[in-house]
């Protein structure tokens, strides 16, 4: 059975304003769902709701057919969320940062895998430099190395292209597509135009959008 995340009649209100109402959406295995909309249209809020971080919403969420609240641990074990803040500790080296994230997923992991993941995001040679000395784009790449390292079917990525250079963007797009080909699913917000592909769907939020899936 393929994993999927479903939302039914989702609504969220902030400061007496509806960010979205009656939003139905479904993310199947092998799909990229791109959430679009102007600044302040509730993209990040939607992603936080869909990743189970915010409880302040109306509607229902289902993971694999079961209500999300009941299968929360199972859902979290299958989710990889990268937020606005990269979640990279400035005083730790990229290797140490990744080791902690692997341990949070419940595995000790090994150094070779971590080195390989860092090399894959173009950080070879920076493994032992404290993250504080890395640029914003490089810190973001440390966070992106988790995509290589921790196999999770559902990726929820909030503006993953921020501060990434052109080659990095292309490589990340390839990685997203490779993930969907292996049967994973991706939920992403970005202002960057993604390459058109068969398994890419778009969701528009905000005025004129009204949460239409295309």
């Amino acid at each position, binding site marked *: 059975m393929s994993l999927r995340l479903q939302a039914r009649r989702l609504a969220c209100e902030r400061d007496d304003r509806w960010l979205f109402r009656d939003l139905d959406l479904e993310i199947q*295995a092998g799909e990229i769902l791109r959430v679009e909309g102007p600044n302040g249209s509730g993209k990040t809020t939607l992603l936080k709701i869909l990743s189970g*971080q915010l409880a302040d919403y109306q509607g229902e969420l289902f993971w694999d057919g079961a209500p999300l609240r009941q299968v929360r641990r199972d859902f979290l074990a299958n989710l990889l969320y990268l*937020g606005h803040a990269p*979640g990279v500790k400035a*005083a730790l080296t990229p290797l140490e940062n990744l080791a902690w994230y692997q*341990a*949070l997923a*419940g595995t*000790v992991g090994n150094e070779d895998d971590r080195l390989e993941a860092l090399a894959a995001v173009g950080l070879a040679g920076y493994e032992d430099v404290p993250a504080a000395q890395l640029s914003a784009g490089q810190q973001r790449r440390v966070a992106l190395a988790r995509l290589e390292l921790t196999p999770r079917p559902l990726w929820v990525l909030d503006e993953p292209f921020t501060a990434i250079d052109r080659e990095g963007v292309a490589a990340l797009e390839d990685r997203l597509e490779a993930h969907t080909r292996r049967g994973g699913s991706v939920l992403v917000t970005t202002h960057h135009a993604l390459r058109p592909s068969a398994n890419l769907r778009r969701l528009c939020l905000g005025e004129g959008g009204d949460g239409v899936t295309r």
Partner: protein
Amino acid sequence: MPRVGEPEGGVMVAIRATLRRDLVLLLRRRSEVLNPLVFFALVITLFPIGISPDPELLATIAPGLLWVAALLAALLSLDGLFRGDYEDGSLEQLLLSPQPLPALAMAKVAVHWLLTGLPLALMAPVLGIMLALPAGSYLVLALSLALGSASLSLIGAIGAALTVGLSRGGVLLSLLVLPLYIPVLIFGAGAVQAAILGAGVSAHLAILGALLAVAMIFAPWAIAASLRISING
């Protein structure tokens, strides 16, 4: 893509890694570890100068002074317990980990106690000499502070978790946490006082231990719930 099952036996791995990570982080930023200790030493140094160098007078107020100063020093360091993680986004990753959050929060609190409460307890006897604390009460002082400061770390972490989302949470944190600190202060200072008077200290230490046991049972859940509330805001 194969689904990932619920992690089994990964809790210990996650706890150990969180312990190591927080220890490394604090040891790389030593000023955060040294600040409470320096504060403690400064306050205790100022009292004989400000009040009187009379050893008898100092000896009577020493237990309370040492305990109050240590308590405030521990309070000072609490604000940073979750703030760094909150600001760089690793707190939301901690909350999204499939591991039980109370256990991970306990790991963070344990590191806080190891690098704040325990050093304060070890330092207190040295500062006790400055206050002419009678011999024979030094061990009880260190022991009561070690026990008590663990409760202080646990209770304080609840307040720190509740105020982590506020940019100026420091004052609010003190107001929230100080009333809950009072029982620990009473029995902690009481133990040292009893040791000076030659009375039995075991009752006081037992109550401190009981307070710690209660805090250890309830605080992890309270910290986890508070963190969720803060992230929701």
